[in-house]
Every structure is written in structure tokens, then in C-alpha cells.
């Protein structure tokens, strides 16, 4: 027998009260921890996903959309720009690297990005096996793609048009997997990377009914007749395409700068002097987080309100207990317990509830986060890597502990003024 045991038995004597207090407190703790960790993880994730990309240049439209589509690969592109722009931008001495990307196809929901070798470097991705893409219709795939689709070196697959999975608009040329990247924990893990030429090749055949490819229109029609039989002819054709890259279009250009001066001047120059737009991913994402931040704040406030309510529940419960069980407590005093000991016994009851709530709250937040991560994966193809921020967690826990301890102390303070003699003689 000890103080803790007596506290625990007191608590179990009123299971409904104990359950309600623990339940509401742990919900609020769970919400607080969960929403914070989710928010930090998503922000880290997005910021991490940028790699060394400091600016994106693409067709005019929404800068946020340009960033979401070309950097995070979760939205539709704003339009196309001329491939010749890449060379112009590269000329600028402030530019460290400018990588053209072009996309519009997918394989089983994973986006196929046509680019140059510089693309993988932007994300700091390294090859796990095989080699980087060197020729048209070769593909190097991100680690997630390889694992989820079970693709191996040498495998071939047919891409389909658009950014979501559909088998109706399948293209007819097959890609060959020549390389698989190591996990970079960035967006590249979920991409299929190929040469720019591959995208052009594929679309020259497939898109003639959607876009007016005036120059090639006739050629395409010819091509269609020969497609099945004459593969050599086709190869010649892509060689031919490579030669007049200048007429080609790409979706956007990913840019990194040599020094911050570029960041200051380039976007304005591009936005005013060309019919393209330049967007700064960091800035756009901050803007986005300001929007989502409102939701996070709202949920946090709700969690704090629940926290307050549950602490009031604990306070009322303990306070009532001190009142209702006054006789029990007075009896304990006659058994030899000191006032301080009663203080501890009832305090422990509160502390036991808070400890249980911390445990279950933590559990709730883990379950909730797991659920959210799954949701993000299935809805947005975003792998959220949970980055727990210990500082933030400790801060939240400290708030919870302080508020609950204050309510416990307030509830049991009347004990100090307890008049045992009066309580014992009031029984009749």
C-alpha cells in the first residue's frame, strides 16, 4: 500500500469521470501534437523538395501553379514556352544552372519528365544502379517509382497522355529503364526522367488531333502509316527532331543562381521583358503556407479550447471529490495521514490522469499522423516524411502540464483549510 496505489484506487472508484477527463485531455494533446508535427513535416517536406531550384520560368499564369506543377509536380502546367529561351537565359552571367523540363505524360500515374542531365543534379539525386538517360526513349526512374511499380533495369513501359493514369490515350513507343535513383526524399523519387527528345517524339505522334503541329502535321500522318512496320524510319525521324530543337517547346525552366543578385533582379527582368513569367518557389510556398496556416491555427485554437475544457473537467472533478469525499479524507487524517499526504494523494490522482492523457494523446497523434500521411500518399502522391520537432513537442507538453497542474492545485487547495473535527461531527 502506498500513496500512488490509494490514488489509483480512488480514481478507479469513479471510472466514468476518470475516463472522460483522460479522453478529452488526450484528444486535445493529440490534436495539438498532431497538427504541429504535420504542419512542420509538410513545410519541411516542401522546402526540402525544392532542391537547389531558386526560380522557375514558365508560361504566364499563376506563379503558384507554376511552382506546384514544375517544382512539386502536383498541379497542371501553365502552358509551354519556346525551347530557344533556355539558351537565352543561360547566357546571363548570374545564372548557375538552367534546366529545361517538359512533361505531359505519365506511366501509371507517375509523371514522366523530359529534361537534361542537370535535372537530377538540381535535386542532388544519385544513381542506385544503371546510368543516366543518354538517348531518346530511355528512362531513369525515381526510387518510389521503382519500388511501387516493380520496375527493373531493362524493363520497358508505354506512357499515356496526360498527368493522371488512363489507358485509353496510351502512346505507342516504349520507354526502356536504364537507371534507378537512390531515394533522395524529394519529388524526384516519384518521377520518371527522360530526355527532352523523348517527350517531343512521343507527342509528335500522339497529339496531332489536339494541337496544331502545322509543320509536322503531314509528316506525322505519314508516320502513322509506317509506325508498326518501319522502326528505322522512326529513329531517323527523332534524329531529325533533335536537329531542330529550336522550334520545340518545353514546359518550364528550373533555375539556380550564382549569387543572390540573380534572385533580386532576374524575376523582374523576365516578368517585364518577356512573355514568360518567373516564379520564386520559396516565396510562393511561403504564400501557400500562409493560407494553410490559417487552418492550422484554427485547429490549434480548437485544441487549446479542448485542453482548457478538459482541465476544467479535471478541476471540477477533483474539487467535487475533495468536497464529496471530505469524510473519507477526514478519516484518513484520523488514521495518521498528514494534510500534506492527502494533498499528495489527490494530486497524484490528477497527475495519473494527466500522465494517461499524455500517453494516449501521443498515441492519438501518431495514429492521426499515420492516417494523414496515408491520405497524402493516396490523394496527392506526396510522401510526407514525419520530421518530429522535439522543441515544439516539448513546448506543447509543457503548456499542457502547466495548465493541468494549475487546475489540480486549485482543486485541492481547499484541503488546506479542511476542518476535520467539523467534518467528522457533521456526519449525523
Amino acid at each position, binding site marked *: *500500500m502506498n500513496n500512488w496505489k490509494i490514488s489509483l484506487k480512488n480514481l*478507479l472508484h469513479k471510472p466514468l469521470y476518470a475516463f472522460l477527463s483522460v479522453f478529452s485531455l488526450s484528444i486535445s494533446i493529440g490534436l495539438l501534437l498532431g497538427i504541429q508535427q504535420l504542419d512542420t513535416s509538410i513545410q519541411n517536406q516542401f522546402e526540402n523538395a525544392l532542391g537547389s531550384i531558386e526560380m522557375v520560368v514558365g508560361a504566364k499564369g499563376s506563379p503558384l501553379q507554376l511552382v506546384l506543377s514544375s517544382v512539386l509536380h502536383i498541379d497542371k502546367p501553365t502552358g509551354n514556352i519556346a525551347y530557344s529561351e533556355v539558351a537565352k537565359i543561360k547566357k546571363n552571367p548570374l545564372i548557375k544552372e538552367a534546366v529545361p523540363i517538359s512533361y505531359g505524360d505519365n506511366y501509371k500515374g507517375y509523371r514522366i519528365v523530359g529534361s537534361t542531365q542537370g535535372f537530377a543534379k538540381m535535386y542532388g539525386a544519385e544513381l542506385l544502379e544503371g546510368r543516366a538517360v543518354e538517348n531518346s526513349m530511355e528512362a531513369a526512374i525515381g526510387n518510389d517509382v521503382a519500388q511501387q511499380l516493380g520496375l527493373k533495369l531493362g524493363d520497358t513501359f508505354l506512357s499515356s497522355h496526360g498527368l493522371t493514369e488512363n489507358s485509353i490515350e496510351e502512346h505507342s513507343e516504349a520507354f526502356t529503364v536504364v537507371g534507378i535513383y537512390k531515394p533522395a526524399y524529394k519529388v524526384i523519387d516519384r518521377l520518371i526522367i527522360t530526355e527532352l527528345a523523348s517527350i517531343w517524339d512521343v507527342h509528335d505522334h500522339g497529339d496531332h488531333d489536339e494541337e496544331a503541329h502545322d509543320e509536322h502535321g503531314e509528316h506525322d500522318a505519314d508516320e502513322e502509316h509506317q509506325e508498326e512496320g518501319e522502326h528505322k524510319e522512326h529513329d531517323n525521324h527523332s534524329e531529325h527532331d533533335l536537329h531542330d530543337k529550336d522550334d520545340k517547346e518545353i514546359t518550364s525552366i528550373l533555375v539556380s543562381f550564382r549569387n543572390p543578385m540573380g534572385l533580386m533582379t532576374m524575376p523582374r527582368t523576365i516578368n517585364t521583358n518577356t512573355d514568360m513569367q518567373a516564379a520564386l518557389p520559396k516565396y510562393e510556398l511561403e504564400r501557400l503556407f500562409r493560407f494553410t496556416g490559417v487552418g492550422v491555427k484554427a485547429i490549434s485554437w480548437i485544441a487549446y479550447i479542448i485542453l482548457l475544457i478538459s482541465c476544467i473537467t479535471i478541476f471540477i472533478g477533483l474539487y467535487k471529490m475533495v468536497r464529496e*469525499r471530505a469524510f473519507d479524507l477526514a478519516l484518513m487524517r484520523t488514521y495518521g*495521514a498528514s494534510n500534506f499526504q492527502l494533498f499528495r494523494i489527490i494530486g497524484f490522482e490528477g497527475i495519473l490522469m494527466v500522465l494517461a492523457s499524455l500517453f494516449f494523446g501521443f498515441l492519438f497523434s501518431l495514429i492521426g499522423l499515420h492516417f494523414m500521411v496515408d491520405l497524402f500518399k493516396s490523394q496527392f502522391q506526396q510522401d510526407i516524411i514525419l520530421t518530429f520537432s522535439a522543441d515544439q513537442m516539448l513546448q506543447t507538453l509543457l503548456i499542457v502540464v502547466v495548465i493541468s497542474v494549475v487546475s489540480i492545485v486549485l482543486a485541492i487547495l481547499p484541503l488546506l483549510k479542511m476542518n476535520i473535527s467539523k467534518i467528522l461531527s457533521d456526519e449525523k
Partner: protein
Amino acid sequence: MVQTDNLKFQYKKAEPLFHFPNITLEEQENLLILGKSGIGKTTLLHLLAGLLKPVSGSVMIDDVQINRLSHSQLDTFRGQNMGLVFQKNHAVRSLTVLDNLKARLFFSKKPIDLAAIASLLEQLDLKETQKKKVNELSEGQLQRLGIAMAVIHNPQVILADEPTSSLDDENCSAVMQLLQQQAEKNQANLVVITHDIRMKSGFKNIITL
């Protein structure tokens, strides 16, 4: 041994002053204090138990003048040397019979002797109830538990406040006998305050307030 000298008590300045007759009990002597309600019986019992401090006079229990002890010394002294029996509330409601007895020993800082608990439960015919909570007991069982709680720690003094007033004749004499038996076994003084004249027959020393 219980001794009081010129004991006076007042709840508030404006209220009447209680002046109690001197009590002197040698070892193993028992005392019945009779009186109507409102006459200060419970006040006297609480003075003896150190739950109230007298305005003047002294309370000696086994050569310790308890009205001079500090609060915490009193808590310890009361827990170790006194056993209190009440009219209605006999034990802590959130604990089982067995846990109550264990807690009683724990609070008085005495070793928890399970064999002694078992034998006391046997004597008071409470063995079947040891796993039950207090509110599951019958009136008679409750009163016996109250006695068990007052004697499990081998006290020097057993103080009983109206232990029989809510009991029928049969239970009343049973409780009286048990109290006296336990007092004798522990070589303790038994002080009972009551307005229940049925108890008169069992006591040699009687004070009427």
C-alpha cells in the same frame, strides 16, 4: 492511560464556553460518557483525539500532553495510538475492506501484517467481505469494519462516537461486546460517548454531561 485536567473549549469567541469534568482513566479502564445532543460530547471526544485544541487545560494520553504537540506530530500520534469509531462512516469508500485495513496501517506508518489483518477479519466475522467495497456491506458489517479500522494498529485508546445509535438492540449489544473485547485484547482504554442509554449496562465508569 487517559487524563484531562480543567479542559475548556470554545468554538468562537461569542459562543458558549464548554467546561468539561476531569477524566482520569488508568490502564485498561473504560469510560462511557452520556449526554444529550448539543451538550458537547463530540467536542470532548475530539479534544481527546487531538482533533480540536482546548482553550485551556490539558489532555494527557500515555504521558504525552497531546494539546502541546504540533499538527504533524499530532497526526502521527493519533494515527499510531488512537482508534476512532464513528456512527455512520466507517472506512474509505473507494477502497475494499482489505485495502482499507492495509491503508489504515500504511497511514499510521506501521508494518502491514497480513496475518494480523486476516485474524482480525476472522474475529469480526468479516472474512467473506474482504474483497468488497464499503458500500456493498450491510449495516452490521459496516459497524464491525469500523471497529476493525479502529483496532488493527493496536492503539492505546479507542474513542467511539455514538457507535450504536443507528443499530437495533441485537447489533447494539454485539457492537458493545466487540468494542470491549478488542479494547481488552489491545490493553487499551475505551472511551464511548453516546446518548444511547442501552449502553449503560456495560460500563462501570460513567460520566453524564
